[in-house]
């Protein structure tokens, strides 16, 4: 099963990781990051790739928000990041604990 009942959904306190069924990878020929899964591929925008690269199974989402706000010297990324992670989660690219 793609997702079991232990998945915590999306919120600032949960820890996301790339789903075991998926792989995040840089594609030289596409000049972008991609998500790979059985018989499929999705090309990622640079900002989506920045977020997913931090979904390492160790950081809470609020830490990811802080890290990206610092890196890009922004203060209002929280909603954008949560919205994107909702999409990533519902597509099965990430799971959370």
């Amino acid at each position, binding site marked *: *099963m*793609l*997702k*079991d009942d232990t998945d915590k959904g999306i919120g600032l306190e949960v820890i996301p990781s790339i789903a*075991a*069924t998926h*792989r995040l*990878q840089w*594609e030289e*020929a*596409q000049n972008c990051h*991609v998500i*790979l*899964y*059985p*018989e*499929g*591929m999705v090309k990622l925008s640079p900002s989506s790739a920045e977020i997913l690269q931090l979904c390492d199974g160790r950081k809470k989402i609020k830490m990811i928000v802080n890290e990206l706000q610092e890196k890009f010297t922004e203060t209002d990324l929280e909603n954008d990041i949560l919205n994107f992670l909702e999409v990533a989660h*519902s597509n*099965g690219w990430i799971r959370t604990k």
Partner: protein
Amino acid sequence: MAGSEQNKIPQPLWLLAELTYACPLQCPYCSNPVEMASVKNELSTGDWLRVLREARKMGATQLGFSGGEPLTRIDLEELITEARQLGFYTNLITSGIGMDEKRIKAFKQAGLDHIQVSFQASSEELNNFIAGTNTFEHKKEMAHLVKKYGYPMVLCFVLHRKNEDQVKDILELSIALEADYVELATTQYYGWAYHNREQLLPTKSQLANAEKIAKEYQKKMEGKMKIYYVIPDYFEDRPKKCMDGWGNVFLTISPDGTALPCHAARQLPGLEFPNVRDHDIEWIWNESPDFNKFRGTSWMKEPCKSCDEKHKDLGGCRCQAYMLTGDATNADPVCGKSEFHEELHSDVDRIGKLAGDEKFEAKPLVFRNMKNSKNFTAKKTPETV
């Protein structure tokens, strides 16, 4: 060049490596050519390693190891290792026959990403009948092991009149086996399936029922198990964008090294198709006349040429156009604008009316095996049991 209206030739993102036509199963809808017995001279390990490197350099990302049954190649572990190191997402498309725990473990170590296991039905009796072998229990064992070793698992069921009514049981079996994805693959009427289409084509009421159940389960299993279900295009009025376009995404390399834009294209007359023994993948994809022949839209004639949907469906399937009209440059007869459309639908209706009739159903299937293939090649009537 035929694709000249496109600014740039796209990349072959999908490489299908048909490693062999050898297979212990005899499914009567197999997509391999009926003339497969005349294809000799399988590519060597070295040839395949070169093909993998060249295709990866061209931008290929998804790699399917297929066949025949790819497990019959003893160099599969070596090919997976190289493919994974090159950065491919590696899919093994298998019947599960020829697999055991030791091999599943070795594939994991080699870096295999995903295993797709085919089943022929949800019941042992029908599964073994369609496969022409006693394989059901072994397949279930293999599915358990695929999950045990942490692979994402796709279960593939090819649907036709004889198992279309099992869709509910098929989905329950998939849940019990903890599949991540289920492909309720509609039979594609090429090769063996085309020859057996009278015995395989489902009825409209079967399809309506199967679709309803598939949708129920899609909702019920949302987020847990992804279910793919597609209506067979013989029942439609708009053609599919076959292979996502000729020479657009897919590159098939068949067991003897013949490169094809799709695995059914070998049958098309007037095309030679390049071989990886003679040319590199870059030339084959970008320069070869055959890969450019139906690329884009400039090859089209009416009714496709002036059709406002021509970029959407690219005229449908070239092989289907050839098989059903005798001319590969015609519109796919699935299209309501094709002059052959009525003929196709009345044939579908004819079969639908005969389905269930005892005498009609008693006509035996021609199973996919080398003996029947040799008979096809010799233009003899294939053995039907």
